[in-house]
């Protein structure tokens, strides 16, 4: 009874999840590897206008953007965009797979098996193609929703209202874009929350996993959304910092863009660890209670 109550309170489950990965740091090992890869790429991009990296990046940046972005401080205007593209590649080819490895470790910890990174990697490797396809599906969904939001922004821009509720709505839609994108990301994460655990733990293929996921998720949609929503709120200060940096009155020196990106990697790892542990634990609990 006590266990059931613990699991069915989102905040309690999140607290338990944080305690779990603190007491079993092996859970965040794959995510630390992911953070290292992201930081390494970010560091290389930080130096892109300088020799020797400029030899590789120079022709690309000059051709796609312009010569100006090869110079200080304009390189910092391009840095977030370059890092965004790099992140997409990392996410598709490595990120989702390392999340799957983390889920395998969480499952091992939950069932009180001996958890090791090597064993988890070995066990998860055969599922690579399925988690890879899932990353494509989830990214496409996020992209589709962002495009839809883009259309909404386009419509809002056409509104002529300068005062009143309409103007407020217009400004909220236009300036709230980063937050809306974060929210849309949360929705996709929620809807697909159990897919990786099903692929990894149940050894299901992508479409079977998606089907099973939808069967379970819609019965506890709000609960899972809360599990995703609360930790993701930690990302809001990063967005606030970013938007304040982009303000025309901003007096902050350009390398702060880089520092914010560094911070976002660290915060994202914490959020991912919490969400993955919580949703996987919840999935395992649901499975046990069946």
């Amino acid at each position, binding site marked *: 009874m006590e266990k059931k109550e613990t699991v069915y309170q989102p905040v309690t489950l999140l607290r338990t999840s944080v305690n779990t990965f603190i007491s079993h*740091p*092996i859970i965040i*090992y794959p995510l*630390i590897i992911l953070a*290292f890869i992201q*930081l*390494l790429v970010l*560091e*290389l991009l930080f*130096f892109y*206008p*300088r*020799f*020797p*990296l400029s030899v590789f990046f120079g022709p690309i940046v000059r051709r796609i953007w312009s010569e100006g972005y090869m*110079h*200080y*401080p304009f390189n910092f205007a391009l840095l977030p965009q370059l890092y965004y593209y790099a992140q997409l590649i990392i996410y598709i080819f490595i990120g989702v797979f390392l999340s799957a490895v983390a889920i395998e470790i969480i499952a091992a910890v939950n069932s009180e098996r001996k958890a090791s990174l090597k064993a988890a990697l070995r066990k998860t490797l055969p599922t690579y193609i399925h988690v890879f396809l899932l990353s494509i599906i989830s990214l496409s969904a996020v992209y589709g929703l962002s495009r839809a939001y883009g259309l909404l922004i386009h419509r809002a821009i056409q509104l002529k209202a300068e005062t009143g509720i309409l103007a407020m709505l217009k400004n909220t839609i236009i300036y709230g874009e980063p937050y809306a994108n974060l929210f849309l990301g949360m929705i996709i994460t929620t809807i697909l929350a159990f897919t990786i655990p099903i692929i990894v733990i149940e050894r299901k293929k992508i479409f079977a996993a998606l089907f099973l996921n939808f069967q379970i998720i819609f019965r506890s949609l709000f609960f899972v959304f809360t599990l995703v929503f609360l930790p993701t709120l930690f990302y809001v200060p990063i967005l606030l910092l970013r938007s304040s940096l982009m303000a025309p009155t901003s007096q902050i*020196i*350009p390398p702060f863009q880089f520092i914010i990106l560094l911070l976002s990697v660290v915060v994202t790892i914490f959020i991912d660890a919490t969400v993955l542990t919580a949703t996987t634990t919840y999935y395992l609990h649901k499975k046990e209670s069946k």
Partner: protein
Amino acid sequence: MKRTLLTFLSILIGLYIILTLWDGKSEYVAEQMIWKANHKLAQIQKNPEAVPESVYKQITALYTAIMTQFSHTRLGPKAAILAGNVYLVKKDYPTARQRFNDVFTQFSNNKEACAEAAMGIGKSYEAENKWSEAVKYYEKTIIDYPTTDIGLMMPVYVASYYRTQKDKDSAQMATDRAIRFYKNILSANPDAGIEFKTLHLLSNFYISLERWADAVETMGKVLMKYPTRQTAAATVTAINQISLLYLSDSNLAVNVYKEFIKKHPKHPLNETLKKMIASFQIIKEKNITLKVQDKK
């Protein structure tokens, strides 16, 4: 895991140090330094009198460091000019002139920098109300560095000065001289990048003189020789405005557009130009006047 974390951290820090040191003397480092100095200069410009002496020293030291360490880059001469500008802000004009004079000796091969230095000296004299001294240096930019941006812009500046001073004779002389100067530049540099800049300056100069027909004719040359999509659209808009609002005569514009269509038969702007020619025709037939009222 602690060991892995330490390894990761060492790799990241090590790589940062290596990449920083590898490129320690490049233009990028100079750009960082000059941005920092410019940022400080912009701050003190808001209230130069309230800024302590040490801050001025700090900024000039930064520019001097860039000038000496990065003299091989394009930012070396730029820093030398900016060091002079610091003294202009400080209103220490003799020192400013001294710094600008250093540019002539240290970067004698860099025409743009020398022109900028000559202008800096001129500005310092102008700030001291010594126009006769200032104009000598402005003339220097025109004579010694005629094809630099500063050299090209200076005849207009000098003519505008006399006009604002209401010195009609000098203004007329400077105006005639400026137009002669631009025409000489155009005949000496046909089809060169400088031609575009000169035509632009000349057409703007004609606009400031309210010589509308000359302005349209010069813009027509810009349109004919540089028909890129962006330039062409902006030039056509300007020609239309002048023809309708100031000239009340569309013949010049129509001739320019007809010649353009003949010379560039496949240009994407042609359809619009044909419509404009037709509209001008209607305006002419219906005798519609849009002329701006003379304020005088």
